[in-house]
């Protein structure tokens, strides 16, 4: 599933970040910020309008991601710690 589909408060593990265009700098930046295979993530909060942006906990850090950004991240909720 995609990170943008994660339920509020739920945890998951990152599988990969997919480029949505060729040489996708947003995807590259997501990887630099720590969205790499095996990394645990958690959906902490959602914006008040249209549940957008999403607040994602990764590592010790929280990032606000718009839905289109979070949709680049595929995750699995199995094996989540």
């Amino acid at each position, binding site marked *: 599933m995609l990170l943008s589909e994660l339920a509020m408060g739920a945890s998951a593990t990152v599988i990969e970040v997919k480029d949505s265009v060729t040489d996708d*700098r*947003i995807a*590259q*930046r*997501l*990887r*630099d*910020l*720590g969205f*790499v*295979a095996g*990394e645990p993530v958690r959906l*902490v*909060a*959602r*914006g*008040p*309008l*249209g549940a*957008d*942006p999403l*607040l994602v*906990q990764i*590592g*010790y*850090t*929280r*990032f*606000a*991601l*718009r839905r*289109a*950004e979070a949709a680049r991240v595929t995750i699995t909720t199995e094996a989540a710690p």
Partner: protein
Amino acid sequence: MNAVAAPLRMDASRDHTHLHVALVGNPNCGKTALFNLLTGTRQKVANYAGVTIERKEGHYTAPSGRSVRVLDLPGAYSLAATSPDEAITRDVVTGQHAQEAAPDLIVCVADATNLRLHLRFVLEIARLGRPMLLALNMMDAARRRGIRIDTAALAQKLGMPVVETIAVKHGGANALIAQIDDAPPTHPYPQPATPSADLHAEVRSILAATVSVPRRTAAIDDAIDRVVLHPVLGLAILAIVMFLIFQAVFSWATPLHDGIDEGMQAAGAWIGNALPDGALRSLLTDGVFAGLGTVLAFLPQILILFLFILCLEESGYLPRAAFLLDRMMLSAGLTGRSFIPLLSSFACAIPGIMATRSIPDPRDRLTTILIAPLMTCSARLPVYALLIAAFIPQRTVLGVFNLQGIVLFTLYIGGIVSALLVAWVIKRLRRDKSEHALMMELPSYRMPHPRDIAIGLYERGMIFVKRVGGIILALTVLLWFLSSFPAPPAGASEPAIHYSLAGMIGRGLHTVFAPLGFNWQICIALVPGLAAREVAVSSLATVYALAGNEDGLQAVVAAQWSLATALSLLAWYVFAPMCISTLATVKRETGSMRNVLVLAGYLFGLAYLASLATYQIAKALGA
């Protein structure tokens, strides 16, 4: 130019009494606080050549007597830059920047409570093989949270010295200062750039061996965020914070604003009295001192606004506000961070435009700057007040509403709606239609440090006075000249301004503005009104030879103008392109004359069309 400068730089780096250090790190690592602690007030803030990105340099004298030059590079997450700020940091640390010499020593600053993210960037920089060391900042917060770091093991794994710092504590950088002073810089081995996944794997293995973290986030942050980011409570808190800022900029600044204005007028008059009546006296009182008054009168608003913005930014609330508002602003082609600059623009566009510095994305920042002048600033109120009092009857509508109030409200809404429309058109027209990301870190909450706030305020004040003040002063003197020369002929029947260059320009403009219903008196008043919008009212009084009698002006206007003319002038002021202080600020903040022309051009076009439509429709309806 560069070829000449290069040998000089090399000489400087060979000079061992000077050491050139660059601070590098992720955003929110406390780098600037550390920079402030190291250099205190011995700082110089300028822009990097050709871009409007702040270049902060300072210096301190090490215990050995050696002078150390410190460059505070913009915060970056990665050397794969995604913004102009990050490109500067990348170019300087890799030694590729055209004007900036490669530093003798790179001091990587990392937040000790956020090493999982920050160490990746440290490893990426270490791959360059340049002399560097790591400063583990915010060690106080790390200890409070029970985070234990084996510094010696970390230094050994990274192959570089590691020191602990607490930027918010007096003497908190002593270990860093000693390390820079004593130890010869160590070079890690240069290695090829590594994919992010591999760097992250390395970070994980280093952390597993050297750091123990009882809990991934601070409990207090989680608790605050549950309230502050709550869909209902969070918005309520935001509304209160915004209301406070708006109140402060709008009304707390007013007595200071008026005080400075009157003080400068009194000073001008006092000096004027010592001089014989004539052009020199008029230049000093109506030109130079009026200009100085205009410049300084903006300062209270700018300082009060930035006091709030700096506190919100330092405490970590500003990104939270942007989080709550992002979706709403995105639909208009803006970002959550556009909100505070736009709100501030209701008081005055000048601090509002300066506040766009908190928007990291250049495209979003430019759009915000371009629409900020559409927010109804307080300088338009005197014009609105005059015309509404003269033409709109005191009548109650629907039992509770005051008609005058409704008209004023409509004018405010007119500005907001136009701003949203313009933002939407800009989104359509701009060439860069690519997706710009939010990807915004919400840092840990922190108590703002008074020293950092004070230094930030001082910088903002100086930027305004030095860089914008000069332009405003020069233009005010120019407008004084236009309004004063040539002098009226002997036995002139009209007020002096009628015969001046401004009068000639105004009467010339009359042909252009006649379709809007503007008479020649209005056209003349618009010329000195360029200096500041509220000046148009006193200029009108001058044109009608009623200087100093603005109540009388209301009666004259009500008797001589048609309702259609009054409505047309109100519509004109919703857009009101004529504020040279705003244009000067845009020039300084964007570094581009093209942006100034685009702004002035579209405001003028919209003002003309809106007034034309208002006048013609009102006339057709018999007003």
